């Protein structure tokens, strides 16, 4: 059985259909990239998973359990979430920010602290140097490293990323993508990653779901995507500079 499963999932606001009968499966260890233009419904699909939005139809299951049957607060504490705007608490130190979910689920303080320090090291931040800093004392890339560490803190089995590196400069973004790939290998769970950056999708996705106007246009491996003939996939491929494929496209990772 798939770890995360969407079956005919719809979301509508009044008469307006935002997501139309979306179905896909995701296994542990996989990274599914939701790729689409602005307004295609990819962020909506992501937010249905942790019930930041409530679906209008269909079923979403995690490890065989319908997300609707679980208390939303408990569900969210078991799912890591990273957003583009970082969302770090400005009045908390880096260490406190990372230990947020462990604090909510009442881990002992020593364990919270140790976990935060371990994760800082894992995402490339020296715990002694950065642990007591506040978010405004960090660069954008460093803040997003804290955001990723925070999402991993309570050892979730599922991670959701909503265009996490979209606000970063291209070099920092590339570094963060590489960091993400490393962290994912240690993490071992499933990830859903929303982006409209094709190079990012090709380099980090094990599969790419292309969304257009709330519908799933196709589900591809990165290699298949490069040959895809669907309109949105072609439109994205046409944005690549002639003769310059993204470096990750030829060596997709899983």
């Amino acid at each position: 059985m798939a770890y995360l499963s969407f079956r005919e999932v719809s979301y509508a606001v009044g008469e307006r259909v935002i997501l139309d009968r979306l179905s896909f499966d995701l296994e542990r260890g996989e990274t599914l990239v939701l790729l689409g233009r602005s307004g295609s419904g990819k962020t909506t699909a992501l937010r249905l998973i942790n019930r930041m939005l409530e679906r209008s139809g269909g079923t979403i299951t995690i490890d065989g359990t319908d997300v609707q049957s679980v208390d939303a607060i408990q569900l969210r504490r078991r799912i890591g979430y990273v957003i583009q705007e970082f969302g770090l608490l400005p009045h908390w130190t880096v260490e406190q920010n990372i230990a947020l979910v462990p604090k909510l689920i009442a881990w002992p303080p020593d364990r919270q602290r140790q976990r935060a320090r371990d994760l800082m090291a894992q995402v490339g931040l020296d715990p002694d140097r950065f642990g007591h800093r506040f978010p405004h004392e960090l660069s954008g890339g460093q803040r997003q490293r804290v955001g990723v560490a925070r999402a991993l803190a309570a050892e979730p089995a599922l991670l959701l990323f909503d265009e996490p590196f979209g606000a970063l400069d291209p070099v920092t973004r590339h570094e963060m993508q590489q960091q993400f790939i490393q962290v994912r290998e240690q993490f071992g769970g499933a990830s859903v990653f929303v982006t409209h950056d094709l190079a990012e999708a090709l380099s980090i996705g094990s599969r790419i779901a292309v969304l257009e106007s709330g519908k799933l246009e196709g589900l591809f491996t990165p290699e298949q995507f490069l040959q895809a003939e669907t309109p949105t996939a072609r439109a994205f491929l046409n944005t690549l500079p002639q003769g310059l494929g993204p470096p990750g496209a030829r060596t997709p990772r899983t």
Partner: protein
Amino acid sequence: MDPVVWRSLAADIVSLTGEHLVLVAVSSIIAICIGVGIGIAGTRHRRLRNVSITVANVLQTIPSLALFGFLLPIPVIGGIGQRTAIISLVLYSLLPILRNTIVGITTVDPALREASTAMGMTDRQLLTLVELPLAAPTILAGIRIAVVTNIGTAVIAAVIGGGGLGVLIFRGVASVDTTQILAGAVPAAVLALLADGTLGYLERRIGRL
């Protein structure tokens, strides 16, 4: 001035300053509890927010002397004395506290609210761990305005037998005695400056955290 008169005036200043402080402290504490409480609830219920802001706005437009007068004939809460004065001061202090509480909380960065909710915070945790700490400087700024205004308005409490430094001022006005007027006005101004300085310092301290 005759030393006996001076001693009597000094004793009046001390006791009336004490009364003034009681009026301001009691009314401010009640206004903070009501204003912050309704303000927080108002951030969760749009209708309550609109109604409470409108009511507080209307109260603020009533001239302070008239508000004291309006309350006099009302049973239970009205009548001559300190209680009526405190109720008037509470009503008069509500708007800045209520408005700043609502503004402070509703202007918290939506990305923070989004991330905190998505991490699994309950509404109560969102309020206590995120919204109130971040809104604290704004709320305190409202309290500061309310308290400093309150110290000035409390002078009028003397008109309805509420005591305080207004007693000296009104006595001075009635007898055209500048010394008595100053004996009431100067301590009231000093109290206002002290409150403004102390609360301003606290506001800056909290804002730096």
